[in-house]
């Protein structure tokens, strides 16, 4: 695995690892009830978020299966952290990775998450040689579902009541995409516009 070169740049975002000074930006979205509804690790107040930030700051590279890389989504203009995306390397032999993401609702609906996820998928497939990426989300989480479909992920699983989530029976969806599926779409996108040939 070649060395990781960060930060990543997209059209409107810088994707970099978390820093100590990101606490207030992270708190602005991570402690919101609308965010808490769908997350596995709950952060109800500043102290919880500070702890979470410590964990996220440790997610700097994928050295062995089980490791997570988390990148803050920083807007190029105002350098504000508006969300984050993470990649968890689950299995080396079969090249499995799980992606998670959060965005501050004040900035959602503008394509930032899609932009960040696309960059993360490129990184996963090209740099980390992931074979299959999957994303889990709650069955009620329509924004995530739409986003997954837009990015070309397939719905692979729809579990009903297969576990308790935040004290209730869950409804969990799994979306997945294989390296060959993702490469095809990005290659199509990357074709340069054909200039007029005399």
């Amino acid at each position, binding site marked *: 695995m070649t060395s990781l070169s960060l930060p990543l740049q997209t059209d409107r975002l810088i994707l970099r690892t978390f820093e100590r000074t990101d606490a207030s930006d992270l708190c602005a979205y991570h402690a919101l009830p609308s965010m808490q509804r769908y997350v596995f690790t709950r952060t109800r107040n500043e102290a919880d978020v500070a702890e979470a930030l410590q964990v996220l700051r440790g997610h700097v590279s994928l050295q062995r299966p089980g490791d997570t890389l988390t990148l803050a989504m920083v807007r190029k203009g105002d350098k504000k952290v508006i969300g984050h995306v993470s990649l968890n390397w689950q*299995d080396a*032999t*079969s090249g*499995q990775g799980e992606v998670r993401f959060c965005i501050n609702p004040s900035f959602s609906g503008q394509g930032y998450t899609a932009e960040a996820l696309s960059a993360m998928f490129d990184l996963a497939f090209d740099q980390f040689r992931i*074979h*299959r990426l*999957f994303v889990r989300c709650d069955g009620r989480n329509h924004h995530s579902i739409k986003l997954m479909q837009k990015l070309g992920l*397939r719905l*692979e*699983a*729809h*579990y*009903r*009541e*297969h*576990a*308790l989530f935040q004290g209730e*029976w869950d409804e969990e969806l*799994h979306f*997945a995409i*294989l390296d060959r599926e993702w490469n095809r779409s990005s290659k199509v996108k990357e074709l340069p516009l054909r200039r007029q040939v005399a």
Partner: protein
Amino acid sequence: MALYPTYPLLTERLRLRPFTRGDVDAVFAYRQREDVARYLFGAALSREECALAVQQRINQTTLDKEGDKVVLAMELGQTSQLIGEVSLIWRSLESEQGEVGWILHPDYHGHGYATEAAGVILNLAFGEAQLHRVVARCAAENGPSFRLMERLGMRREAHFRDHSITKGVWDEEFIYAILRDEWLNRQSQSPTSG
């Protein structure tokens, strides 16, 4: 939540009972076959491996704690011929989850024996064991197995592609599931099934 059935369990045509040491040859008869091993996690078994497997199964008769597994020999009622096995695994205590499975000697496919045995197991799972949801999994190309799941009223909840490598090959896996209410409703609608 626990399961201590009184054996044998009888159905119209079958007897489900714990394994005994005398079952090694009958188990070897199907576990040595490539067409059986193809859809199981391991390779075809030697007779020694079957002896070991039977040895393990002898004590797998109750569910005391999460992770426990009940594996029962499936015998024809009339001839006492051992034709396969059914299993129930207690997957989660907190969320009351279980998993069923079956292996049937190919010579006895197509008679509804596995459906009959699996019905008994689901009755135990949702009855005495008080599980909330039971899953079954199989390779996507194993039509007889997933059609059996569908006959039992299980729904296809997952279709995974390339999510692991089994015996050197990318897998394609189905997961089927049924909830307690769904099973009980079916039973009340067709009291003769299962």
